[in-house]
């Protein structure tokens, strides 16, 4: 059996050192708590914000005026918007500028254009702009430095694999030391745990390059760990049935679309959307935020490909776009374009819709960032009822960290059931160097195959009760086979096994929720319920798993 290297104690544990996790850890430490942050990779360069971002959603009264409701509407209408409890969106917006100021003071340049904050991009002509343009190329290093300065203990290469709870709530985590080829377990105990493990990539085959599991827009090391682990201890997930698909250049998925300044066109030059005929840094072409399925539609109806054409963009704005791409961490793409002579002033680049991933779908939190399990918090991409990407992770991480550090329980710390911990250890140890075993890749691809066919996302693909029911059965078989046959040669491969098993829980939760939503909405298209039911417009579906395995599905009103 893999040995237990040590047991750690803290007031607050943070799982995941991305944007949300680092901000949560800093807030909790500044609130006086002893904080340990456990990160799968290295916080200086991990997660979807690894090499930068450049748009920070934010409410700033001097720019937007005193009526915040105008900006609330803008946020809810944006691509980030559809599945929010608006009360949480308001809390986020109220606290957003404070976070911007903190980031600026920590060395992330939130004012790259001089003394004032500048808002640009992702906007309809003549509507308020809610995205602050910033330079995030060094954001992970700066946040890491601030966390250390605040007294956070950062433990890298130590992914969390299970959450530990007792009757009162969460009480710690089981983590796997993958810093050397020989893995070891670490348990960490605390009355407060903040989950911040990011999105769930690798759940569906990469739409452009099936079989190339790591060609994903968001970080492929983010594999729905928090959703899966919280699901296993009975926390409520919300909005899991709604697929989300990002879009960007084809076939290079680690890119995204937001920094490009150009106009989307059909091959004959006609514009895809009605919004702008010439794009500028202030107002780009928002067509694909609004007509999300456009790139797929054009392939399916034969009118494609769809191109992004920057050739009419001014030289100054093209230079500005290049700077933006550096801030956003797209230097890999820029190097490639330079090496291959691809110049946005002369070449139009084809765009596509990427495969579904989970972002803004997952843990249900309350106004303070707490989940349905006492002591367990969540922030960032894996939260299901508020979403604002980089800004959402930062601000809600801060809110959760501050709340977790306040009102810590006194007395002797709770301990988990030793039998449960031992069973987890035995389970994960069983994969190590199993003779003649199967590779994690087989299981990950098997899972993607099932998700592609039985929990498909629109456009042009449907779900139905019979498909989803079959998918759930196939997933159970795959899981049984995986648990019996997967083999890992070392810590790295064992981590991939753990990720794959976590993704299976995500897939099952998606299918259970998709079965329950008996209507079509967004990219959740049911062939057996083709209409959109207005009575369900303001209804959120939550799901959780009871100890015996029963899945409880509950509907509630969206919070205003």
């Amino acid at each position, binding site marked *: 059996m893999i040995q237990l290297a040590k047991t750690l104690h803290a007031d607050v544990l943070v799982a995941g050192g991305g944007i949300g996790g680092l901000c949560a850890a800093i807030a909790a430490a500044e609130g006086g708590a002893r904080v340990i942050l456990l990160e799968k990779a290295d916080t200086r360069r991990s997660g979807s914000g690894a090499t930068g971002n450049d748009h920070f959603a934010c409410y700033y009264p001097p720019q937007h005026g005193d009526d915040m409701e105008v900006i609330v509407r803008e946020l809810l209408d944006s691509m980030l918007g559809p599945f929010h409890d608006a009360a949480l969106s308001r809390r986020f917006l109220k606290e957003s500028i404070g976070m911007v100021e903190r980031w600026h003071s920590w060395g992330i340049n939130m004012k790259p254009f001089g003394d004032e904050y500048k808002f640009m991009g992702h906007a309809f002509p003549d509507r308020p702009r809610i995205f602050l343009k910033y330079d995030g190329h060094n954001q992970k290093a700066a946040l890491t430095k601030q966390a250390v300065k605040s007294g956070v203990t950062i433990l890298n290469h130590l992914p969390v694999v299970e959450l530990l709870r007792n009757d009162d709530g969460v009480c710690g985590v089981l983590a796997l030391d993958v810093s050397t080829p020989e893995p070891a377990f670490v348990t960490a105990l605390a009355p407060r745990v903040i989950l911040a493990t990011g999105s769930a990539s690798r759940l569906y085959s990469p739409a452009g390059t099936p079989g190339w599991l790591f060609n994903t827009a968001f970080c492929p090391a983010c594999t729905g760990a928090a959703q899966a682990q919280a699901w296993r201890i009975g926390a409520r997930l919300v909005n899991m049935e709604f697929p989300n698909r990002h879009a960007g250049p084809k076939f290079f998925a680690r890119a995204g679309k937001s920094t490009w300044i150009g106009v989307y066109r059909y091959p004959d030059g006609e514009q895809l959307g009605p919004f702008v005929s010439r794009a500028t840094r202030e107002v780009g072409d928002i067509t694909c935020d609004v007509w999300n399925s456009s790139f797929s539609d054009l392939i399916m109806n034969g009118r494609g490909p769809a191109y992004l054409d920057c*050739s009419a963009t001014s030289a100054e704005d093209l230079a500005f776009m290049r700077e933006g791409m550096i801030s956003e961490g797209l230097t890999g793409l820029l190097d490639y374009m330079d090496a291959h002579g691809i110049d946005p002033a*002369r070449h139009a680049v084809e765009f596509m819709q990427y495969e579904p991933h989970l972002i803004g779908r997952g843990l249900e939190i309350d106004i303070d960032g707490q989940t349905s399990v006492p002591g367990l918090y969540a922030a960032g991409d894996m939260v299901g009822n508020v979403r604002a990407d980089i800004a959402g992770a930062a601000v809600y991480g801060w809110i959760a960290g501050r709340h977790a550090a306040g009102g810590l329980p006194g007395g002797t710390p709770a301990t988990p059931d030793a039998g449960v911990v031992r069973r987890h250890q035995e389970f994960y140890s069983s994969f190590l160097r199993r003779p003649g075993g199967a590779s994690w890749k087989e299981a990950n691809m098997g899972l993607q195959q099932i998700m592609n066919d039985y929990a498909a996302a629109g456009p042009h693909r449907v779900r139905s009760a019979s498909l989803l029911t079959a998918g759930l059965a196939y997933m159970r078989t795959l899981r049984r086979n995986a648990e019996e046959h997967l083999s890992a040669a070392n810590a790295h491969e064992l981590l991939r096994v753990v990720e794959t098993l976590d993704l299976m829980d995500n897939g099952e939760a998606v299918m259970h929720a998709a079965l329950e939503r008996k209507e079509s909405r967004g990219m959740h298209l049911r062939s057996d319920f083709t209409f959109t039911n207005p009575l369900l417009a303001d209804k959120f579906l939550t799901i959780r798993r009871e100890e015996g395995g029963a899945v409880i599905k509950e509907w509630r009103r969206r919070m205003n």
Partner: protein
Amino acid sequence: MPPVIDAGKCSRCGLCAAICPLGVFEQTERKTVPAVRYGEECWHCNACRLDCPSGAITLRIPLNYQLLHTDASQLHR
């Protein structure tokens, strides 16, 4: 294999192996040139190239990631 290390330039500091979000490199012994052990798992985030203090890393983007494009003048005939 996506990242390529120029062993002649590499100072064997191990930073790339420490920071790669996907664990692509393996440096089993200190002060050795890291091996690109899991190249297929590269996300092409470019962190290793940006952070390598010796400029020893280049990224080789796989052929099938080809960035599809056309002459923009084709769209304005």
